């Protein structure tokens, strides 16, 4: 996939952005977790720290990796911008310089008792604007019969309440 868009990169770089990673196994198991450590790496991959080795989120992400499937990342900014990235887990590591970098970051932010189970590296496969207006435009075009007829785009002013 080509490099992530400027919009996605900007959201990832913004500390005010909420970053949520969702892993689901397709059999009813799913976990959404806030991942404030999620970042775009120089090589274009994404990486985040998983705090807890034995968490359900970690198991589900591993299951996705083993199955060759993808997770979902949602980025949400206070100004309403939102972006979705479909990303496949490509590597889990708990040693080495990348792990150390996240570990030290956690120490700096969360204090000497902080914990990092491991680091997941993901490859972005697909991205899209998840903002409400962008989604509405797409959905209205693709599925016009779901638009309420009292919407201002559908009816002139006078006919509405």
């Amino acid at each position, binding site marked *: 996939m080509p490099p992530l868009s400027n919009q996605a990169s900007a959201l990832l770089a913004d500390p005010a952005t909420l970053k949520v990673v969702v892993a689901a196994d397709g059999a009813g198991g799913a976990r959404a977790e806030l991942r404030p450590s999620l970042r775009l790496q120089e090589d274009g991959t994404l990486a985040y720290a998983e705090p807890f080795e034995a968490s359900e989120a970690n198991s589900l992400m591993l299951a996705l990796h083993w199955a060759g499937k993808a997770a979902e990342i949602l980025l949400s900014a206070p100004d309403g911008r939102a972006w979705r990235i479909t990303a496949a887990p490509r590597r889990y590591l708990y040693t080495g310089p990348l792990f150390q970098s996240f570990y030290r970051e956690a120490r700096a932010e969360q204090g000497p008792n902080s914990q990092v189970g491991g680091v997941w590296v993901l490859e972005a496969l697909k991205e899209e604007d998840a903002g409400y207006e962008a989604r509405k435009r797409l959905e209205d075009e693709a599925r016009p*019969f779901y638009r309420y007829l009292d919407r201002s785009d559908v009816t002139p002013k006078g006919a509405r309440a």
Partner: protein
Amino acid sequence: MSEGDLDHIEQLEAKYPDVPRFVLLKLALRYRGVRLLAPATLAISDADYNYGPVQVFRYHDEEALKKAHPGPLLFRDGTTGLVAFEDREVFEDPYVIDHEGGKFLLYSDASKARLVDEVDFTPRPAYYGKRTSSGKPMESIATARAQRMIICAYRHCHFWDTGEQCKYCAFFTDLNETRQVSEKKFPKDVEAEDIYETVREILKEPGRVSEIYMTAGADYEGEPAFEAEVDRYINILQAIGRNFKGRFSSQLMAPAYSKAQYKKLYERTGLTTVCPNIEVWDERLFKWICPGKERFVGRAKWIQNTVDAVEVFGKGNVYTQVIGGVELAKPHGFKTEDEALASNFEACEFYSKHGVVFVSVVFGPARSSVFHDQKRPSLEYFVRLIRGLRQIREKHGLKADNDDYKHCGNHADADLERVD
């Protein structure tokens, strides 16, 4: 265990895990009927629920007009159940709905031995009880399902005049006799202006409607056939269109017009989809069950016109429906369910290849129809049918948005698409 009872539902659930329980219940309720117990009837009299008995396709006398009547039933997952009550058909052992603790509760039968689930009913639209400027009750102009407003533009089917009506049909009867109600009691024409005003009224209720649906009895007057009807629809659709900017989400269920007639409709109105129902695919059975359609259009031309309509309205914007189960009607129908299914799947495959969305409904032997004494096939037949249709449509990239659970609620095969 009997057809469509709770034990049967549980058995079907185990056998077809890809068919949700609510869809099975929807089919079962259609199959076995529903009776409202007195507390439920009382609760329905509440203004929020009471649609009244007035229905745009049926005549009701003074006594009937006093009765409360609910809108479409809703299951907890949003599935609509267009259940038949006992005034329409004869049911031996219907499910019952009671009202307890402020909730509508569905039970397996009159003994209330087993609670099935909590249900609800579609709230009555806010325009009900209002009148047009010509004094017509708006609910006599249009009714509403969850997200669809249904308008009847002409309350007489001229196929009945010569006994050539579709044999399962009970439109515009009083449900007692196999004939159309007289003009005096049930005026045929519906004024375009009344329709315009009723549509304008429903738009005042935020979020109530996302599709305008229209149909009528067949009127084959004009040259070519049905030209008068086409002009009537254009007139009405243009009136409705004054409420909107440009094209609006809509469906016209009408005969299979010629391509030129479809072009006229498309170019002069805001109509978005059409639905010329084939009703039954098999050539021999089509002629027997729908003699009027056969005489005034003919099966081959019906099919061709439907396919041609895709060029005008676009892939996925032309629908056609089959009355599932009617193809097994005696004495001339298929002898086995497998044969009947094969015929329907052949039809679905054909239409899907040509960009037409093929859906099914469950045959109900209405009391005032020719087929009033026919039996339905097994409930499992309908389960197999809806699964097959959904798979075929999915293969061809087609979805029944216009006729889905929110807009129509009468096609269980479309309900299955909700997870696609």
